[in-house]
């Protein structure tokens, strides 16, 4: 029997970025998986856990486990939500429950890389563009999807390994692999520093001649998109899933 993949769509992605969720569903199906979208889906609880409100966090952790623990795999187009369930639910769920749930959780590129394998990927849509890759912190330093510049270990990038299978794509890296400054409620509580960080990321990509920035976390991209729009900076933002599924529509 084909393994079943449950699709987890982060709460804000559902309403603000449905194309990314749709793209994720299509790529997974194109690889031959049976994909289910169990409902009702709720927030992973990250904003509450990250603000020290563990009672609220526990409620979200429990409903997440209730909904997803029966599946073989749970995949989401977000490294920060997956990171939350994988690492921050520890202590919020019963240990045995968390131990069984955690290894089933994958960020999309991680899943395509580790479970399918980059060579076996079925990707049909070329993307002949120069694309700046924004490596989000949770992808780099929590899920370890690529080598962060701080660590003296051999270079690797699961995201790039997957994305580079796209015909015609030119992947460009910014000078710094620094945080974009979103950081959840950090973006409003420390809005001045947050905005300065985001503007610096955008400027870095612009210096590399990039006009399309791609990433695996829409929260980072939403923050930088908001800044670029306010400043009138010509930069377009797209989730990696949309490139993989050929679902890029720049309004």
């Amino acid at each position, binding site marked *: 029997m084909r393994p079943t993949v449950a699709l987890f*769509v982060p*709460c804000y*992605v*559902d*309403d*603000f*970025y*449905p194309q990314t*969720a*749709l793209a994720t*569903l299509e790529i997974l199906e194109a690889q031959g998986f049976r994909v289910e*979208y169990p*409902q*009702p*889906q*709720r*927030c992973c609880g990250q*904003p*509450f856990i*990250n*603000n*020290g*409100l563990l009672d*609220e966090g526990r*409620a*979200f952790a429990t*409903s997440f486990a209730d909904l997803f623990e029966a599946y073989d795999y749970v995949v989401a187009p977000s490294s920060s939500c997956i990171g939350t369930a994988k690492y921050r639910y520890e202590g919020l769920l019963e240990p045995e429950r968390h131990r069984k749930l955690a290894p089933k959780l994958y960020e999309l590129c991680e899943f395509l890389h580790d479970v399918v394998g980059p060579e076996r990927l079925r990707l049909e849509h070329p993307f002949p563009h120069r694309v700046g890759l924004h490596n989000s*912190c949770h992808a780099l*330093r929590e899920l370890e999807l690529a080598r*962060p*510049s*701080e*660590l*003296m*270990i051999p270079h690797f990038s699961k995201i790039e390994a997957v994305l580079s299978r796209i015909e015609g794509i030119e992947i460009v890296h910014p000078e*710094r692999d*620094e*945080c974009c*400054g*979103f*950081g959840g*409620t*950090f*973006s*409003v*509580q*420390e*809005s*001045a*520093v*947050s*905005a*300065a*960080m985001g503007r610096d990321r955008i400027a870095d990509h612009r210096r590399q001649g990039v006009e399309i920035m791609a990433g695996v976390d829409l929260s980072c991209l*939403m*923050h930088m*998109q*908001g*800044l670029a*729009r306010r400043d009138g900076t010509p930069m377009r933002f797209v989730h990696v899933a949309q490139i993989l599924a050929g679902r890029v529509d720049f309004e």
Partner: protein
Amino acid sequence: MRSEESKFVDHFRNAEEFLKDPEQARWHDRALWFVRQKRDTAAASVPEWEELRRAAETIKAHTLEHLGYYLERFEERAQANGIEVLWAEDAAEFRRLVAEILQRHGASRVVKSKSMLTEECGLNPHLEARGIEVTDTDLGERIVQLAGDRPSHIVLPAIHLRKEQVAEIFSSHLHTDPSNADPSYLTRAAREHLRRKFLEADAAITGVNFALAEEGAFVVCTNEGNADLGTALPDLHIACMGLEKLIPSARDLGVFTRLLARSATGQAITAYTSHFRRPKPGGKLYLILVDDGRSALLQSSRRELLSCIRCGACMNTCPVYRRSGGHSYGTVVPGPIGSALAGTRDPGRYASLPFACSLCASCDLVCPVRIDLHQHLLDERQQTIRVPEYRGKVRGLKAAAFLLRHPRLYRQSIAALRWLLPRLPRSLIYNRFNLWGREREMPSPAPRSFSELYQARQGADNER
């Protein structure tokens, strides 16, 4: 200083103030990122770098686990070497001990090399009030001292000042040409000025980077040789250390000296790594071991923070520190480690510091002793979110949690938002309560959510 104890440090406001001078802020960010890059290059030159970090972490954890044993061992060996070992339970006792020693020896002019502990304990003002002149001999610290300012970084104390500002400070104190901001010119002026201070001094105070339990000796690392110059002439040397500076023996030292300078400034080793083992002939060497909250920390879940070797790498890499400056933290030790330590001292006063962090975790990965800094800050948020200042924030979060836990209600709210947003005038959306909209445009909800699109897709599938 004590009267401010309960005053809330608002990191957000302080950072906003810092960023009002974008030119200076950009310079600060670039200067420290440059140091971070030098650190990367230096670390990359050591093939076993990550192993070295793990070794340092293990040695520190072991020493802290057996701190009582090593402290006794150290005291015994140091005394056998002729060092007079004293203990101070808190900052007040430490200040009193130093003042007493100096007064007993009739010392009124003191040269002091860098010691964050003396900053922590407010030593300088205490001594100055007793007619004792204290000269900080580290160049950065001297600049800050002349300016009547405070260090903003533990390794680069004057990093918040630019050379033009240093020229101004020097011109009013050392009578240099205020229009000459050439670093060589200014450094030469400082050197001449400090030479006089070294020659006149009748006592030296130093910090301690590493204390070796087995040998009863200690090591002071500087780049300017100012600890050596300071201790060379006077017969009196007072060394000050926090309890956590201990390592088991000289055999372990290499792990730390290899990590310290590379992590701090990207040098292979500090220019001077000076070993002190006994008083000079006819001289007197005191060593004061200061607790000041450290043994309480040792018993807590924050013990790991005592492993810190004060290299400053977490500050250089922290994107928030680089864009808000050391003073925005309102602490002696700023940045990630400073925020984590401040919470263990006064969680109410420093409640904003665990939130002055985007949880990017870069600090964890540069830390030479692998402290899980961002995890500590995250854990501290559980306490600090309860301060009165965050009552509104908590209420908002709880309301959001309620909404997100009730899918039907949530759907209805989003539907209302979808209808409302395009109809509202811009001035109403971007009001002063919209913290997101201060700096950025709002994202707009898509015409149809993924859930709706999925339902339609399933319906179409079923009809086929």
